[in-house]
């Protein structure tokens, strides 16, 4: 157990509203990641963080922003939710430096109506 908590676990929101998903970790990991998982596309990286206030874009970052103001929390924000952002969102952390695996949270299921 890598001590990862994602909140909320489920959310339904309307198109155009802002949404923030939270990933909280308790083990002081340096690296944190946000992925979305969709049928036919697998897991795709949205943004990742390599330290407090240090973030970078992944392959599907458009429409998403992130913030990491403290080690334990990595927030994913959808500024204006669209139906194409309906997905399951996973947070992951990396326990060490190079050649160490990611460990995942249990996901947030987001539905944009």
């Amino acid at each position, binding site marked *: 157990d890598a001590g990862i908590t994602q909140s909320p676990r489920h959310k339904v929101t309307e198109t155009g509203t802002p949404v923030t998903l939270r990933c909280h970790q308790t083990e002081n990991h340096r*690296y944190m990641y946000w992925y979305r998982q969709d049928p036919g596309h*697998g897991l795709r*990286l949205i943004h990742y963080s390599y330290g407090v206030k240090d973030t970078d874009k992944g392959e599907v970052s458009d429409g998403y922003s992130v913030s990491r103001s403290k080690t334990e929390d990595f927030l994913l924000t959808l500024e204006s939710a669209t139906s194409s952002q309906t997905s399951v969102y996973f947070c992951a952390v990396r326990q060490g430096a190079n*050649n160490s*695996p*990611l460990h995942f949270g249990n*996901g947030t299921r987001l539905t944009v109506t």
Partner: protein
Amino acid sequence: SQELEQSPQSLIVQEGKNLTINCTSSKTLYGLYWYKQKYGEGLIFLMMLQKGGEEKSHEKITAKLDEKKQQSSLHITASQPSHAGIYLCGAENTGNQFYFGTGTSLTVIP
């Protein structure tokens, strides 16, 4: 682009049968990771392979990485219903970014 191709996309086997899932990259891999995902849940880390020719086993699951570090296989011996789920392979690029295959869905019929 970074891609991992998994085959087959889905697999249905009778309990007790052996099976193999493959993961192929067009580029040499720095490391190859296998995960299992139960439906509606997060991914569980299974094994990591780093060296060409490396083989690791855990209980009835064996993973191998070929000498060229471009192909990996996951073999399950005497499958059980508890092995059912989605198996994903993942790899890392030089920028600490992880990318994944699209997964193999495994159903084990009792």
